[in-house]
Each structure stands twice: as structure tokens, then as C-alpha cells.
């Protein structure tokens, strides 16, 4: 079977620090998988390795059938990433930013694609505004538009609704659900928002101190820890409380 993501024995060591230790997982095409864990659990390091921004110390990553060690540019053309912590150039307008990334991803029909994204994410009112002058909610929508500019087959999202008010957060989550259903895109989502994970994810990988310490569907994890919501499961794992069975 071809997986969208196939990670085997992935390890990242920075001198004395083991950031990610021997993790393996697969993500099927069209699936949304949550990468959960506290600060320093290794989520960002794992995503950076999936994006080719960081070279693993050991292990192998296959993304969309491409070996990231040998053929990462073929994979990068079909994937994208969004994070509220990685800003777009602040002086450029929203439209200019999207134009830049449309060219970098070799998108054909640049203005038409920007128009489509402006319709879908309701960007029209601030397309001509500098990215640095947007509200947090507007920045999140623009970051998503940037991440979708190339119609990615794989979307990596790092806390996509962080710093958003509940209403805007809900709108973004609804939009992500709809987009995934319509496009069949695979999504890997790192988040601290457990309600978001329960709502969006088919599978969850729980990370702690660089290792995957548990995995399963949200329902499986709730049953395993005998809990009613993922927040309690998260706390059980973070505080080393054992699963119920």
C-alpha cells in the first residue's frame, strides 16, 4: 500500500539532546492525523524533518512516495505547511505574498488561484493590505491560503487555530473539515487543542520526550484511558498515568 507518509525509525539528536527517538508511523492518503504532545515532545522537530528542513540523525521518511533524503523537492511541490508561528513577509500585501508562493510552487493561473482562495477563505477585504497589518484571525486565514496555493496532496499544520477566538477557531476548523472532504488531502496536524483533535483527526499520535507513547483513533484512546475527552487523555499521558487497560 502507498502511504501519504511513511516514517521508519526516525531519530534526531542534537549533540547531547535526543529530540526525537526512534519513531515510526504511517498516514494513509486522505487521513487526518493528529500529532499531540506537550512542549518539547518533538512535534515541531518531526514536522521539520517531514518538510526536509531538518535532516534526521537516523531513520527514513517517505512522503507521497518520495524518499525525503533523495528526492525531497518532488515531494515538496505536492505538500505545504501552515503555522501561526512562521510569519509571511509583513510589508508585502496579502495578494503579493500569495503571488510569491504561487510562483515558488509553479502554480499555473496565479491570479485565478488567488481569486479562488480569496473566495473560499473570505480574503477579498484585505487582499491589498500588508500582511503585517492583519488581525490574528486574518493572518491565520492568509497562512492557510498560502498553504493551499499549490492544492497540496499533503498539508502539515502546526497549531492552526492557536491565538484565535473561539468563533474564528471554529470557522477555521469547519473550513478544514470541508476542504479535506472535498479535496481528499492528507493532513498532519500538531495541536494543543484537544477538542480540535477529537473533531478533525482520524488517528492520533501521542508524543512525549521525543517518543510516540500511544496511538489510535480518538475513540480508542478515550476508551483505553477510560476518559470522556482528549484533554484528560493528554493529561494522563503527560503525567505518566497508565491507560485503564
Amino acid at each position: 500500500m502507498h502511504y501519504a507518509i511513511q516514517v521508519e525509525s526516525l531519530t534526531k539528536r542534537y549533540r547531547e539532546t535526543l529530540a526525537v527517538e526512534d519513531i515510526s508511523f504511517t498516514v494513509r492518503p486522505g487521513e487526518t492525523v493528529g500529532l499531540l504532545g506537550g512542549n518539547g515532545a518533538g512535534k515541531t522537530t518531526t514536522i521539520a524533518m517531514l518538510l526536509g528542513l531538518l535532516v534526521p540523525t537516523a531513520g527514513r521518511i517517505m512522503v507521497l512516495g518520495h524518499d525525503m533524503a533523495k528526492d525531497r523537492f518532488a515531494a515538496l511541490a505536492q505538500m505545504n505547511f501552515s503555522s501561526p508561528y512562521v510569519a509571511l513577509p509583513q510589508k508585502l500585501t496579502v495578494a503579493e505574498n500569495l503571488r510569491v508562493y504561487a510562483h515558488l510552487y509553479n502554480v499555473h493561473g496565479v491570479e485565478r488561484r488567488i481569486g479562488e482562495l480569496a473566495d473560499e477563505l473570505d480574503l477579498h477585504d484585505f487582499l491589498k493590505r500588508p500582511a503585517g497589518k492583519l488581525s490574528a484571525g486574518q493572518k491565520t486565514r492568509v497562512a492557510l491560503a498560502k498553504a493551499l496555493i499549490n492544492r497540496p496532496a499533503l498539508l502539515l499544520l502546526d497549531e492552526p487555530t492557536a491565538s484565535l477566538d473561539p468563533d474564528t477557531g471554529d470557522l477555521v476548523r469547519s473550513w478544514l473539515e470541508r476542504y479535506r472532504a472535498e479535496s481528499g488531502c492528507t493532513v498532519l496536524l500538531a495541536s494543543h487543542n484537544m477538542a480540535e483533535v477529537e473533531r478533525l483527526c482520524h488517528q492520533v499520535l501521542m508524543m512525549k520526550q521525543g517518543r510516540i507513547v500511544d496511538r489510535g483513533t480518538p475513540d480508542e484512546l478515550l476508551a483505553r484511558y477510560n476518559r470522556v475527552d482528549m484533554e484528560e487523555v493528554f493529561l494522563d499521558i503527560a503525567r505518566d498515568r497508565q491507560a485503564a487497560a
Partner: protein
Amino acid sequence: MIPLRRIWGLMYRHLALYQRSWPRLVDLAYWPIMQMIIWGFTSRFFAVRIGSTPAVTVGVLLGGVLLWETALRSHLGFAVTFMEEVWSRNLGHVFISPLRPWEMLAALMGMAILRTAAGVIPAAVLAGLLYHFNIISVGPVLALFLLNLMVMGWWVALGCTSLILSQGGGAESLVWSMLPGLTPLAAVFYPVAIMPHWLQPIALALPAAHVFEGLRSAIRDGVIAWHQLAWAAGLNAVWLSGAMLLFWWQFQAARRNGALMNIGE
């Protein structure tokens, strides 16, 4: 096929920035024009008070200023364009796109050419208006002088960029000082022969020294010193190859140690 769209994408990002930032635009031409004014008066003073041949004095000094500014602007154009990505913390986005590192270098070189033209052309026009010095009168060989100095600016900037990848934004000060620091060795206003013997081989290892020897020969004697141009081109090929290897090495090291994820300080 050359992936012009990706190269253009990164250039467009910077051109859009200049379009809405007049201080950046002014900065491009300000210093070359100041240099031209200062050295124009200085060359007139030398010609009048010391009694040298005015046309030759003005030509050698102003020609030197204009050509050296080409190297300096090329260096700054390349390095500052890279620094803009560091300042806006955008390198992460750039390096997770399908843009290859060599395509990024091509875009930086393209921006360096545009920035150099925006800086040096107004100064050259001013030299004609104020001091009746026409740099084009050097002849078609001028294009080869300019090309060699432009390339020298690239490889020095590439060295700075590699250091920033290795050391982070803390190495930024090198961007401003690296090539200006080589001015004494570039033989811009005086021949290499006037330097101490032990310094001459070091100066002759720089393409600029050969370009300026060639420029003086063209202006003073009307002779094109092809051997100097050949030396400049050969040295540029060696230095540029070395700088590209250094960049590639530092880029891979940055991918190993995580520097690309948080480069900026």
C-alpha cells in the same frame, strides 16, 4: 529547463518590497552618488593643484569609484536580499517550497544586478553632468570590467551568506564590512606595484586588482590589457566555485543542526 518561475517568484518578493518602501529605493543610489561627488571634487583638486593631466586624473579616480561601487553594490545587493529573508523570518517558508538552493542563489544574483544598476547608473550620469566624465568612453571592454566586479561582489556576499547560515544573524555585521574591508587590496586608485612586496600577491589574488590595473591601462594608455581581464575572470571562477561549495556545505550543516528553523539572531 531553467525554472525561471521560481527564480522570478523570489525576485518578485523583493521587487514588491522596493515598490512600497522609498527609503530602500533612496538607499540604493545614495552612497554611490555621495562617493561620486566627493571623488569628483577630489580629482579636480588633484588635477588643478598638483598639475596632473585633468582628463586622466578624473578618469582614473572617477572610473575607479564607479567600478568599485559596482562591486560594492553587487555584494550588498546579494547579501541584503538574503538578509531581508532573515529579518522577515521567511527562510523557513522559502526552504520548504520546491525552490532549490541554486535557484535561490540565481534570484539573489538577479536582485544584485538590479540593485547595482539602480545604484551605479545614477552616479554615472551624475559624473557626466558634473565632471564631464563619460565612463562609456572606456569602450566595450567596460562590460567585461563591470561583469568581473559584479561577480566578485557575488562571491564575497556568498561567503557572508554562508557565515550567516553558520552563525545566525549575529554575523550580519560582516555583510556591511567584508567587501569594503578589501578596498585597500583592490588597487582601486593606485597600482599594485605601490604596495609592499609581501602584500602584492594577496592583492593579485583578488580579481578587482586586475580589473583596476586594466582600467588604468585603458584610460591612461588606451590599451586593453587582456591578460589582466583573463586573470580577473580566472580568479573569479575559482573564488565563485569555492564560495558556492562553502554555501552548500553550510546549507547542509544548517539542515543538520536546525539553524534553518530559527535563523534570525
